[in-house]
């Protein structure tokens, strides 16, 4: 996919050489807390990340795990009632202190986001052409013809046929896959260094999903762009990400290079998540290993490990004390007292696995997901541990206005 005459970012603080040790993005101890009527909701807690140029970081988790809030927090797309603490350094600049004016310079030009739902991410009453050139008008000093040529080149590079005609069309005239390509073209318009892809293919069919992910990968290679791929699907990140961070209850519970994570997963949650996916290579009617119970209530997080209540290997210690995120010495981080597959714990874990498995299959219906009592006392956020609807929609609106 060749992309002739694509935009070069205007005032980008260029690095003089490539052997730079400083990662593109450094996130240290980032926490995001939403204020709510019932108290603070800790949507993201103590997240530390490093991302080099040209690399892909996958962030995986269920709804309510904080994965979307994390990417929005890094970008600064959080509502006013959210408090962020910690540090986010992008190319050496601290983003947490940056004001709206500085963020405006960075958004679109330096970092951009591909949103989940291409139906709502586009403005329905504005032509595709105007939406694509919006950030070019904002950041680059281009003439009208240059902008048009860039927009056509962008549409062509994301695989949209007849780009000249598409510029004059409205979003409703395009299919879902085409709209998502337009959203990607908008994100790529100013040649960002960092692309956030927040569930970019969840709303799309598998065939289109493969096309879109290939497209992001091709653009990434061409532009040496770093990508943060947020998804609930381990299948999507397995072949696309260099490194994966698994989130649960607002925290990173395991983080490792992709190969290592899939080969030697340490956290029981990662293991459970992988096991619950129906596999193509298994015969039909293979019993799925569901994770019983529900994600923790972030309004009242449990005292110990956040996964303890659903963990088949949980010990008394897990319910009492929260484990730290530890490095096993090879860059594989996990947050667990009794990690899966560690030699010293092997015997006990094996016996627990066997017992747990039998129990799960036997009385799945009776035990799983029985209505918890907290559902009545705290409607809204407590029902399934998700942040309330208001923050989510509020930051979506904010994101649309500002991106």
């Amino acid at each position, binding site marked *: 996919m060749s992309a002739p005459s694509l935009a070069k970012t205007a005032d980008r603080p260029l690095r003089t050489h490539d052997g730079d040790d400083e990662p593109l993005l450094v996130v240290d101890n980032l926490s995001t807390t939403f204020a709510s009527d019932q108290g603070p909701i800790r949507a993201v807690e103590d997240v530390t990340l490093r991302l080099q140029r040209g690399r892909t970081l996958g962030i995986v988790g269920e709804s309510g795990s904080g994965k979307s809030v994390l990417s929005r927090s890094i970008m600064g797309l959080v509502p006013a009632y959210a408090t962020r603490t910690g540090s986010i350094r992008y190319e050496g600049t601290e983003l947490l202190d940056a004001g709206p004016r500085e963020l405006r310079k960075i958004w679109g030009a330096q970092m951009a986001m591909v949103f989940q739902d291409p139906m709502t991410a586009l403005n329905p009453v504005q032509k595709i052409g105007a939406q694509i050139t919006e950030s070019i008008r904002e950041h680059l000093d281009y003439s009208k013809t240059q902008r048009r040529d860039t927009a056509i080149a962008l549409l062509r590079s994301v695989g949209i046929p007849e780009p000249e005609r598409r510029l004059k069309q409205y979003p409703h005239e395009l299919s879902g896959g085409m709209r998502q390509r337009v959203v990607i073209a908008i994100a790529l318009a100013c040649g960002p260094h960092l692309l956030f892809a927040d569930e970019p293919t969840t709303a799309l069919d598998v065939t289109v999903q493969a096309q879109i992910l290939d497209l992001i990968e091709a653009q990434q290679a061409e532009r040496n762009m770093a990508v943060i791929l947020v998804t609930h699907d381990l299948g999507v990140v397995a072949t696309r990400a260099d490194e994966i961070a698994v989130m649960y209850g607002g925290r990173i519970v395991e983080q490792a290079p992709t190969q290592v994570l899939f080969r030697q997963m340490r956290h029981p949650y990662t293991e459970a998540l992988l096991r619950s996916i129906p596999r193509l290579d298994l015969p039909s009617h293979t019993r799925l290993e569901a994770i019983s119970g*529900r994600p923790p209530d972030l309004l009242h997080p449990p005292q110990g490990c956040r996964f303890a209540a659903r963990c088949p290997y949980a010990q008394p210690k897990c319910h009492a004390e929260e484990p730290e995120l530890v490095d096993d010495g090879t860059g594989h981080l996990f947050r667990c007292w009794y990690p899966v597959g560690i030699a010293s714990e092997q015997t006990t874990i094996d016996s627990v696995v066997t017992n747990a498995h039998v129990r799960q299959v036997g009385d799945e219906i009776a035990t799983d997901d029985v209505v918890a009592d907290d559902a009545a006392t705290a409607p809204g956020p407590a029902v399934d541990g998700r942040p309330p609807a208001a923050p989510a929609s509020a930051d979506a609106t904010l994101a649309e206005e500002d991106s």
Partner: protein
Amino acid sequence: MAGRGHAHLGDPAEALLRVEDLHVRFRTGRGTVFAVTEVSLDIRKGETLGLVGESGCGKSTTGRAIMQLPPPTEGRVIYDGQDLTQLRPEDLRRSRTKLQMIFQDPISSLNPRRKVEDIVAEGLKIWQPTGWTPLAIASLVFTVVGVLVTLSMFLGGGVGALGFFGVMALLLGVALGLMHFAGFGQPVDPTMATKVDEILDAVGLDPTTARGRRPHQFSGGQCQRISIARAVVTEPDLIICDEPVSALDVSVQAQILNLLEDLKARYGLTLVFIAHDLAVVKNVSDRVAVMYLGRLCEVGAPDVIYSQPAHPYTQLLLDAIPEPDPDLRHKERAPLQGELPSPLAPPSGCHFRTRCPRADEVCVEVVPEMASTGDGRFVACHHPLVETVVDIGTASARG
């Protein structure tokens, strides 16, 4: 098919429900949408038939056409010896207890203002015999007396105090009648409450806490359990599950899929499972039917189809699935190129030919017929990836 034909249909005696040459067309301002074209299927008793394809392939429309929501434009849907498309509305309503449906969005498919027990019991209440309750008798008496008194007064000439009472009695009778038909005064059937509790328990909800709550107090997975309870409570033969797990997280998805398998065994259900996720469909299905642009491509056992697809479309669909295995990063695959053609003007011949790597002139001219590949699988393709065999028995039997 992207084709047509009946070769894949089994013995009618084994089929719980049989669909023949189903067409669904919608008239729109821009022309006619060919949503489903010449689809024939049989759903065998006790099986799960997976219906899979991309959005817009007509899989949901097929499921809804079976339920007569709306009735198909052409074709027959034979259930229990009757063609559902020919039934009078009242008879169709009666069949609905035996044919149930579960929808994609668990939250919007439940009425937010009703309690769980009412949602689940509604199907039962509709079919409860409406007996002569005191309310019904009172209504009848007041109406008859009211009509007689009023009539006699009018015929007699003068409208006096008695006439006034006659009219009041008539109005009261009508009002009581309306209350009766709205469900007031019906004895609460104790077996109904027991039944609701039993079903709630079966779908993994605690009846004592869940009964009195409303849908917003439950998570998406729990709402889907309520939808399932509502469908199962009328003791149906067939449940059409339209993307029941697409809106759910993977961990919850596994719970719901396991639940459907358990309920199927427990209540002897037959399922039509409509989904776009091929791995999910493989997991639950006994047979899979792949659809493309309103036509069938391939029908057969999932293990056969998935290990060796015969239709080029199935092959491309399978190649597109991301496998949770980093070693498959460089697996050979040719992604499906191009866009789905418009269902307003589907291609001639084989519907898939515009995107098919094997297409030639025959595919432009002729709609492929379903043909057996000898392993219980049928494919509608002029150039299948697995050789088809002429099954003389089937061919002569069906003509």
